[in-house]
């Protein structure tokens, strides 16, 4: 087995093992922390399709994270207040059912990604970075100035939403649900990278001219990648909102978008498990450093700077010892 495969297996198993340990030690807070890492990992796995495989440095993925979050917040808010979401010629009721919420989160963030992608993929490089960042900020300000769903204060949901056959209020069961979704998405992303679409997308990153010359359009490849990427991050947003039972405009903030990229790069760009490693490392640092200093982010900044300047393969790159990740 390749070293990276062994490392990936260890990383993958680390979360359920740590969660089981936390359960045995009766530390539900730790389970919640691990769940948080798993959700961040999912969000960054979504971004990694666009960023790692497609070479699209999106600094606006918080838009999709927030849309997923508000999909949950809005549907659950209407369900708990017994008011319909839409009450005109059609009547749309709120819901507390996770599968329905996820579906709405995926579809609405995919639609937003389609619109943002169609505009920003007309450009490339620095323009693309600035434009995705700006559109992300647009959603942030919109969420703040739209008072119907709490504006700046956000929305609280009293009880976690339902999943058939599970008690989602039990931290371990909710973690299992999140981990199952993360596993399924990781499995799909692994397949996707090797599927015809993945080869074409990766080739378009390396050499767009080559892809055009064999009759494939890079714009459409990138747009589809951006939409799938946004949808996965949107799903993560819905889960994140459910974890906290709270949504607020901070889910849309540009820092969130920046952190997703940080997860990917800390772990290793273009590697399937890079975002998982990065998100775990970040949450671990947060957990260990924040009691030490109120200014713990300064250390994160320093570590990040050192990784970017001197350890370009990220965590997996350093441990697996292979510079080039893309296959």
């Amino acid at each position: 087995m390749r070293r990276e495969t062994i490392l990936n297996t260890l990383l993958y198993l680390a979360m359920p093992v740590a969660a089981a340990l936390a359960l045995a030690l009766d530390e539900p807070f730790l389970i919640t922390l691990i769940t948080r890492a798993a959700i961040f990992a999912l969000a960054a796995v979504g971004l990694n399709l666009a960023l790692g495989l497609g070479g699209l440095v999106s600094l606006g993925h918080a838009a999709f994270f927030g849309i997923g979050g508000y999909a949950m917040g809005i549907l659950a808010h209407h369900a708990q207040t017994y008011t319909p979401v839409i009450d005109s010629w059609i009547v749309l009721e709120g819901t507390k059912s996770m599968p329905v919420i996820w579906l709405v989160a995926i579809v609405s963030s995919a639609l937003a990604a389609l619109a943002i992608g169609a505009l920003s993929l007309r450009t490339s490089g620095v323009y693309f970075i600035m434009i995705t960042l700006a559109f992300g900020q647009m959603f942030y300000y919109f969420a703040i100035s739209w008072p119907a769903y709490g504006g700046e204060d956000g929305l609280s949901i009293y009880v976690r939403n339902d999943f058939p056959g599970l008690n989602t209020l039990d931290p371990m069961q909710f973690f299992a649900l999140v981990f199952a979704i993360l596993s399924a998405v990781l499995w799909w992303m692994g397949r996707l990278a090797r599927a015809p679409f993945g080869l074409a997308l990766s080739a378009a990153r390396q050499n767009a001219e080559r892809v055009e010359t064999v009759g494939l359009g890079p714009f459409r490849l990138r747009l589809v990648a951006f939409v799938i990427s946004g949808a996965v991050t949107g799903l993560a947003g819905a889960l994140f909102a459910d974890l906290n039972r709270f949504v607020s405009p901070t889910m849309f903030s540009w820092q969130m978008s920046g952190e997703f990229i940080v997860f990917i790069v800390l772990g290793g760009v273009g590697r399937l498990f890079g975002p998982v490693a990065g998100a775990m490392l970040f949450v671990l640092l947060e957990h260990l450093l924040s009691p030490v200093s109120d200014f713990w982010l300064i250390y994160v900044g320093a570590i990040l700077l050192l990784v970017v300047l001197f350890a370009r393969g990220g965590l997996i790159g350093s441990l697996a010892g292979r510079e080039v990740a893309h296959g």
Partner: protein
Amino acid sequence: MAEPMLHVDGLQKAFGALQATDGVTLTLMPGEIHALIGPNGAGKSTLIKQIAGGLAPDAGRIWFDGREVTALGTPARARAGLGRTFQISSLAMEATVLQNAVLGAMGRAGSAWRFLRPVMRDAELVEQAQAALQRVGLTDHAATRTAELSHGQRRLLEVAVALTLQPKAFVMDEPMAGLGASGSKRMTSFLDGLRREAPILLVEHDMDAVFALADRISVLVYGKIIATGTADDIRADPQVRTAYLGEEDAA
């Protein structure tokens, strides 16, 4: 007379004050190798780009395989059957040699929109890709990362990728560049056989190869075609001698 496979009519392209393509009209007939030669800066690459679809002409029209393609982009022209190789190798450098060829086969199958099954386990695509690699002699390097290929091997891979498309015509931009004497000779005999499958519009600096291969030669100078004819016609053309071959003799 047969219909031309490729017909370029009155193409114009200017960059500011520079008229890079100045009323170019040319045809590529089935079964022929039509060489396009000219001194550096004559506008060969600009012309090729317009034919392949990467650059929109200011005026003029292009027909390919009986239909007008002037308004189509590069991918659509490739799907219509125009196979192209680049002057500077244009490949996915991090991918393996076989993956590059499979990418071409995917283009021919017309679909990248499959999201589950590993492409390298698609027997049909891999078979087409392997066949193309075999024809250019790269079978032994199928699993090599493209970045590790020598310059000459990359040129061969360019041709192999174009082959996987099974195109109706080839547009090749200096396939001999940097190949060395023996490589050049092998490529020459390969292209010689290839013309029976599909005609080739060949831009080339290697005059031995051009005069050995070309059924017709067009000479491009300052964006204009100053002469078109057989190798003998071109050798004898006084205008060409002064504008172009004269320089070669002097050198």
